[in-house]
């Protein structure tokens, strides 16, 4: 057991994976001597050598494409894109190859790769360092998409992602890289992909979230509890394939749902969650669904960043509104 931050948990999972499986190879910009711009790979190059912890040229398309080639050969590449805002050139390889290789060859070639990228706003970073575009990846059949919201989940889910036989995109919220510590058993145990985590039980309202926003979800739930509103907080954790049953089951009990995410609203993954509820649990709904999200704008530079990020108060307001329905 160790009291660690989320980025330390990522590092510990990477170290464990490198240790346990010689097929694991880390590649990306500045992952070597520098240990990653967020220090996620700190010390790994020194410990495992430059063959297995590889600095790449500044070539996002090649990083993803090389990972596909490695994975087809049975390696388990863990590729890093330095920030999610720079992932677009890798998307071609992800969507057109990684996600399809197994299906295309009817199982002859697999693609057990992981693509990691830090993401999200709230750290006062330059332009293109604050996006939350997970919805794009959640729409790609053949991929898996995981977003941890705590050190323990980062550790267990990243290990699961690396051990998974299929391509997994793993987005790490920079805002909570160091925002808190948690006791994590560094025993190599993975957590299941595709399973949501109910972080707080409550009978009045289901609050669905993922990533850094889970902090605001929990804070809002705590505050609302003081008003007598008991909120069930669900961290989706895996967005593809996502655990609709967990959400539907909860909503069937609570009759109310608020969805919180940091990405802009329109076309965000919250829409999918809402749609499934409207399809499969409509009868249980006692109030309209509410999405609390960033507005449909480009993430502002740091001066106006606070106007972009959904706040605890926004969640509380949405919850109150939903509770007062009818």
């Amino acid at each position: 057991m160790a009291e660690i931050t989320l980025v330390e948990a990522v590092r510990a999972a990477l170290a464990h994976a490198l240790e346990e499986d010689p097929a694991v190879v880390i590649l990306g910009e500045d992952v070597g001597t520098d240990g990653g711009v967020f220090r996620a790979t700190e010390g790994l190059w020194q410990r495992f050598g430059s063959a297995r912890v590889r600095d790449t040229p500044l070539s996002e398309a090649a990083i993803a494409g090389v990972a596909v080639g490695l994975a087809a050969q049975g390696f388990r590449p863990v590729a890093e894109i330095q920030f999610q805002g720079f992932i677009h050139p890798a998307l071609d390889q992800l969507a057109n190859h990684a996600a399809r290789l197994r299906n295309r060859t009817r199982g002859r070639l697999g693609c057990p790769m992981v693509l990691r990228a830090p993401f999200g706003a709230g750290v006062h970073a330059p332009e293109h360092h604050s996006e939350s575009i997970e919805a794009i990846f959640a729409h790609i059949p053949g991929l898996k998409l995981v977003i941890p919201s705590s050190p323990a989940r980062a550790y267990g889910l990243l290990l699961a992602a690396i051990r998974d036989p299929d391509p997994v995109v793993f987005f790490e919220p920079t805002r909570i890289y160091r925002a808190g510590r948690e006791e994590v058993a560094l025993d190599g145990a993975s957590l299941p992909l595709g399973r949501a985590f109910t972080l707080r039980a409550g009978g009045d309202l289901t609050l669905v979230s993922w990533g850094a926003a889970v902090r605001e979800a929990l804070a809002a739930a705590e505050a609302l509890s003081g008003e007598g509103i008991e909120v069930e907080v669900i961290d989706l954790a895996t967005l593809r394939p996502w655990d609709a049953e967990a959400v539907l089951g909860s909503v069937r009990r609570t009759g109310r749902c608020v969805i919180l995410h940091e990405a802009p609203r329109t076309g965000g993954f919250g829409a999918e969650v809402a749609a499934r509820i409207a399809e499969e649990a409509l009868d249980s709904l006692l109030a309209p669904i509410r999405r609390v999200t960033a507005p449909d704008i480009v993430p502002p530079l740091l001066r106006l960043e606070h106007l972009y990020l959904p706040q605890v108060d926004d969640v509380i307001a949405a919850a109150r509104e939903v509770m007062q329905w009818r």
Partner: protein
Amino acid sequence: MQDRPAAEEIVARFEIARTAFLDPDGTPRAPLPDFARDRGSLVAMYRAMLLARAFDARAVALQRTGRLGTYPSALGQEAVAVGTAAAMAPGDLLVPSFREHGAQIMRGVRMEELFLYWGGDERGSDFRDQREDFPVCVPVGTQYPHAAGVALAFQLRGEDRVAVAVGGDGSTSRGDFAEALNIAGVWKLPAVFVVANNGWAISVPREAQSAAQTLAQKAVAAGIPEQQCDGNDVIAVRATVAAALARARAGQGPSLIECLTYRLADHTTADDASRYRDDAAVSARWAEEPVRRLRAHLARAHGWSAAEEEALHAGIAAEVDAATEAYLATPPQPATAIVDYLYAALPPDLARLRARLEGQDG
């Protein structure tokens, strides 16, 4: 100021060389490499080119009669595919584009598999005998980074194997091409990048694709060796690829090879090249095509006879017929195939879809 150095000094020099052995009429223009003095190996390549051409003709015929999807003929480019595959060891790995049927067949992909693939059936990429080569790659240029990744796998495992990617002249304009060559260069990966410059990317002629005088010189950007060769001379292609493979095996890293050939056919069966190129220009290029060229050399230097030629054709025709029959007799896939290979284990949502498809034919 005379004794001062000039403002300019030359810091690097490059020469792009072109290799050719057989003239268009089949006459050797230079001493042939060892493998090309061996009648058996020449005949094997000749047969492979004829087979590729016969496969191609059959594929086009199947498409015209509604039994195949859109198909890209490799007519006139057989020497690139065959020369490349002939140079490769079985343990090497081919990362093709979509016009290397001849190389795929030589590497153990069954013709009925290729028919299946081009007929719109994914099972055609589940090669029965060739388990490691990559399947056809449709997004132009995206295959090059795969070859770099495969080569890195070989390097990491210390294997004596080389990854060979093939693409067209158009593919050299894609960023992926440049990124892959660059990363392979800096990591000295055992990879060979072969460009089949057939003069056209659909309707875009080579000279509208790049101001580079040769495509071979694109290697200079990555600091790796390059070579241009006569891509209608199977001996030149094989010798050039073999030299690059040898460099890769010796730990000297990747190479780029440009094979100068010509697309005698339409881009695909969905294309009508007469819209954008002169038929007369195409006719002139028939004089350079690779099959006739090697036959002329075989006849002159190795007494290749009409009877041998006939026997070869008959054997090939029978092979292609058998593959066609096997293709046409392939039972349909079950409908469940659309979900069964997406992931190693079926996620719950897809399990529901699968249950609905169960028992249906595809």
